[in-house]
């Protein structure tokens, strides 16, 4: 019974976030545009030699997604804070982790869409040939995105309520995401070059472990964080 209640709240919060974001549009579009801009700038920094671009493609794509994603995570709580909607949200009786879970679902969708755009642009700009193992690559991207979204959303719940949210979120988040970035970048790179060393599997396992650890940890700790 209780889990059914909780699941309904998770769904309705995700629905609310997606609907408001879809209607306001400005948010997602500018974040995606920023990601593409960063990607182009990486092209200037690393190109124009085709091989150099190809080698750096995975890193550029993930860093562009990271920098743009940070803005999306802060926005996710900004919407609640600007209109004062966080107060009624906190006054509904029942478990609070559902708020985080709902926002995780919505943010996962946004970041997934943004990654799709960034990858398409990246493949074109950095002259990457899509490997045969593209399903594994897709899985790796999904796992990396989950890691990014989980800690990004959790830390945004804190940073968005401080004076220095723009600088505090990256300061807290980026060091925590080192394993995600290393795994996502190295894993993508390996898969793009045919995974000769059979290392992609190790990176995927690392991401799975990271995601499990931090999805559980954030859901457990969220009640304390949002309450305070």
């Amino acid at each position: 019974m209780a889990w059914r209640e909780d699941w309904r709240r998770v769904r309705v919060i995700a629905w609310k976030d997606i609907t408001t974001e879809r209607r306001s549009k400005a948010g997602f579009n500018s974040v995606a545009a920023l990601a593409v801009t960063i990607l182009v700038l990486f092209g200037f920094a690393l190109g124009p030699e085709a091989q150099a671009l190809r080698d750096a493609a995975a890193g550029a794509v993930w860093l562009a997604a990271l920098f743009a994603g940070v803005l999306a995570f802060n926005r996710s709580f900004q919407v609640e804070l600007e209109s004062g909607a966080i107060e009624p949200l906190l006054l509904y009786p029942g478990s609070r982790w559902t708020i985080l879970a709902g926002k995780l679902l919505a943010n996962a969708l946004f970041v997934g869409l943004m990654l799709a755009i960034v990858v398409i642009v990246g493949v074109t700009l950095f002259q990457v040939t899509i490997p045969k193992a593209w399903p594994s690559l897709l899985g790796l991207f999904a796992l990396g995105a989950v890691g990014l979204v989980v800690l990004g959303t959790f830390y945004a719940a804190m940073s968005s309520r401080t004076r220095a949210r723009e600088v505090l979120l990256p300061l807290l988040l980026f060091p925590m995401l080192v394993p995600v970035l290393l795994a996502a970048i190295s894993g993508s790179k390996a898969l793009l070059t045919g995974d000769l060393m059979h290392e992609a599997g190790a990176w995927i396992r690392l991401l799975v472990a990271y995601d499990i650890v931090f999805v559980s940890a954030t859901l457990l700790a969220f009640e304390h964080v949002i309450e305070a």
Partner: protein
Amino acid sequence: MNAESSLAVDAQRIARRFGARWCLRGVSLQVRPGEVVGLAGANGSGKTTFLRVLSTLLKPNAGAARVYGHDVTRAADDVRRHVGFLAHTAGLYDDLTALENLRFAAEMLGRSPEGLEASLDRVGLARVANDRVRGFSAGMQRRLALARLMLMHPRLLLLDEPYANLDAAGIDIMNAVITEVRNAGGAALLVLHELAPAAGMLDRVLTLVDGRIAAEGDGPAANAPTASAPTLASAAGAR
């Protein structure tokens, strides 16, 4: 169920500060079921802070408060089941329609999303049910927040300047809601800047000065017997 028989609000020496500034310096206050109490005072006297402590949004730095027997810090979730808090800001989602805002609240409360149109109709917003809240005036937002509040079936209303931005019809709706909750055995605590719109509603008025309760008197009933005498009588009858 000792909770059923106890006071709607029992606050003991509540103190709360922000940084080094004390907004509340020990406020004690009891509200019985069936009572409507007004809380007056100048800007910054701590009225809103007091409501927010009772609503569980803020924790007191000192003192304790119970709502229908549930402690606001230790049993916050039980308190939330009884309390309807109308904040100064409406707290609506601008990019959702009026109806969607209500549906969101209903789903969060685990209520069936049926009959939401009737709720909107009651606050006079049926016409704009499918319009986004972004275009709403402050008064319309307040009415919608009131409709959302009533979805909770609260037994204690905490209303922060409930009449702000409301027109005459809106004031009547607000008073009808307060009367309804009181007649059902609930209670209400109203933060007020001017007492006129609440004329006849209030059983007592307390004044906060600098985070302390300074004065207690009967409602404006005492000053304006013609307007309020029947209401007070009916309130007593309801009890």
